[in-house]
């Protein structure tokens, strides 16, 4: 759909990443880049190391070898807080919202990093703290409007159906106004209609805010429609990296997904 090429420079590159947990080799010498403004998909069978890769990018995991280049800056290790401050936001495979808090508060939490008023002012909720809260509430309302979740603004997140929770989680990531958005299986467990809505939102985020997006997805139809380029992982190794059309034809990829006769 957004089939245009993005010749822009790499926003983020991972180079020679290797990650192991004890004896398990999760990632082996994986390198690829994500260009500014593109939608980049990471696919692969179960256990291929996709989520591990996202966790390395935003600093949950520390790789044993390799490094990350973000906006040209070389980082041997990313940390979650640092990633967030530099404009990397993410959603999780298993929704990780604050279940007891309303949708609005969950989204406001996404703005926490951008709030600068001290504890004292926030406690009084007056003066600069109030001005700041109004500013951030406005930003959050734009996200609510964008994702069309006005009707559930004040509903506790835990009470929402799964598809909507996923949308709220995307909202919280968007509230950070990220430069790079990492989406871990944004459509898992959704029905066809919810999937189509989510695709629409992802494309709109990309085209309207110019946000660079890296997403993990199983639904090949979705991947083909959404992404500009696809990285294929299998058993922690990169076995493909090209446009969706090329990747779909690749024998290695077909083998990885369907299995090979021995």
């Amino acid at each position: 759909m957004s089939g245009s090429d993005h010749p822009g420079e790499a926003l983020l590159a991972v180079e020679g990443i290797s990650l192991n947990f004890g004896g398990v080799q999760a990632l082996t010498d994986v390198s690829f880049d994500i260009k500014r403004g593109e939608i980049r998909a990471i696919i692969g069978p179960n256990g291929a190391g996709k989520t591990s890769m996202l966790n390395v990018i935003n600093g949950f995991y520390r790789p044993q070898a390799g490094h990350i280049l973000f906006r040209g800056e070389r980082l041997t290790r990313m940390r979650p807080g640092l990633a967030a401050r530099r404009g990397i936001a993410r959603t999780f495979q298993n929704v990780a919202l604050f279940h007891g808090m309303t949708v609005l508060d969950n989204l406001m939490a996404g703005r926490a990093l951008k709030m600068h008023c001290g504890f004292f002012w926030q406690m009084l909720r007056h003066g600069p703290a109030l001005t700041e809260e109004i500013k951030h509430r406005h930003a959050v309302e734009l996200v609510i409007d964008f994702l069309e979740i006005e009707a559930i603004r004040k509903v506790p997140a835990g009470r929402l159906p799964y598809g909507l929770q996923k949308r709220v989680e995307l909202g919280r990531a968007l509230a950070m106004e990220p430069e790079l958005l990492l989406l871990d299986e944004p459509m898992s467990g959704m029905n066809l209609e919810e999937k189509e809505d989510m695709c629409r939102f992802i494309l709109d985020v990309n085209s309207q805010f110019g946000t660079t997006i890296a997403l993990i997805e199983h639904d090949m139809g979705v991947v083909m429609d959404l992404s500009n380029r696809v990285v294929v992982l299998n058993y922690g190794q990169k076995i493909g990296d090209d446009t969706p059309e090329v990747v779909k034809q690749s024998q290695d990829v077909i083998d990885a997904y369907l299995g090979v006769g021995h």
Partner: protein
Amino acid sequence: MTPIRRKLSALGGVVLPNTVLGDADTFPKLLARNAALRGTRPAFRHKDLGIWHSWSWAETYDIVRAYALGLSQLGLKRGDIIAVIGANRPKLYWTFLAAQALGAVPVPVYADAVAEEVGFVLAHAAAGFAAVQDQEQVDKVLAVQDRLPALRAMIYDEPRGLRAYDGARLRQIDAIIDLGRRALREDPAARARIDAEIAAGDAADICVVLYTSGTTGQPKGVRICSGRAIHAVTDSVAFDRLTDTEEVLAYLPLAWVGDYYLCFAQALVAGFCVSCPESAETVQENLREIGPSFYFAPPRVFEGLLTTTTVRMQDCGAVKRWLFHYFIAVARRHGERLLNGQPVPLPARLLYAIGRLLIYAPLSNTLGFSRIRVAYTAGEAIGPDLFSFFRSLGINLKQFYGQTEAFLYLTAQPDGKISAESVGIVLPHVELRIAADGEVQFKSPGQFAGYLKDESKTAATLTADGYVKTGDAGFFDHSGQLRIIDRARDVGRLNNGALFAPKFIENKLKFYPHIREAVVFGNARDFVACFLNIDLTSVGDWAERNGITYPSYQELAGNERIAELLRGHVEEVNRALASEPALAAAQIRRFLVLHKQLDADDGELTRTQKVRRGPIAERYAKLIDALYDGSTETETVTEVTLEDGRKGTICARLKIRDLQLFATATERAA
């Protein structure tokens, strides 16, 4: 003779009395009057980004004049048609006013219509312009633009997703208003020009063309002229004593006469404020925030409210549940009598007062009904139980009867004289009669000025002496109120000559919360049979309570126990029919539960959710045959339209069930 009277009598029809409006014979003139009389009072409100914004009458007048000037620079002029497609938003209402200020004619189109239907209306009306809400509507119009040679420009409210579109023929409404503002500021002649345009409008101007929902065939464009419209509205405003302090939430479809009348025309005549909800999903919440004093909803909305209330009360703790049921019973005994001002003993009054404190007031508040002074329902028959439930809570719910061709009201119930079966007394200045075949016919102040580009249909609708045929069969009851029984041409006969009024039977079925829709067959048949549609909310709830699991609507509808549940309801209806000798022969002998919900996207319902018999009979011909050939099971493949416009098919195996028939009193005696 005032100008209005002279112009209207030139049009023929009813001669109008003097009104209190002075010379305001168009809606833009009413806007100017409101800006002068109550400039600082709110005229429109809209919730956007979580905040209610409001515009006073004076601000609205300024905006509308700038908007009109901007539109005229775009090329809109007297007599042009401008389609308006979208939800209830101030900018779309202002489009009505700005177009009318130039003498152009707005044609609202149902926002949830598919591209095909939008294309039909725009092509038929030969719309030169379209004002739409958002990308979704722009896409629909662009999809059918090959068939719209007259379309010159499109304007939109929400810019989201529209940046990549061709900008030459597509402009934002805000940009048009700015264009007009700049002209007003820089060009002294512009102000005079726009004021002259407004002054040039008169009572004979067509103020809107409303396409009827088309229960039969293609929609027809009903032309309403502004002088007549304003007169009709003035009468109903006086009837319900509406003032400029009323609050209204505009959530009805923009293209429906009810919204144009109740939210737009009444607001301009009475000078009250119209609030636009944040989105279609937030209506219930916005209702609570605004607390309207005048409210309209079709019976199915009240039905939905009662269903959700009942379902949620079943999930409550035992004490709350007991309190609710106890006081609802109290309300059912005394509430309506209190509302009607009839005598009620003191202990009952006290009990009701406690009930109000504990249950009725909080419930009304949750529903957004705390401040309601006048509430109306119309369009379909309302169940007596449902009707009295809301009235017993102290909500002044009434019924009226009308149609698009009359510019809404013909009859309405006065406060205190209410019944669920009738639709009220004939309004002042309306002449209403019952023809020999039972059809209701009328002449009224708001009477339409013919169908757009359809002389033959206009002629077919009028009688030789100038009355409009409603197509509804009805009669006046003992209290002088009108009762509607069915569409005149739907009233048929069984093969044995017995009377068959399908809608009457369907309504009886639909009063059961488990039945969402019913389609009854029987005209020129040996017996009566029917299709039923389950109501997913209430049947789903029943299923949950009774340990039935179901993956989707289709499986739930096909469940044996659900069918037995429905059988009980249908047999109760049969029992009721048996008690009325004229209708006893029309008892339902066989029924089946449909595997899919009847849907407007599939052409089975109109956009106002009325059953379209013709298309249903065609689509489900095989099922109907099975009802009458004695088979107990049948297979079907149905094509359905998905929300994005693609087609899919559903296959199902449906069981047909036979029902018990009841003897009438005379048969029992024999």
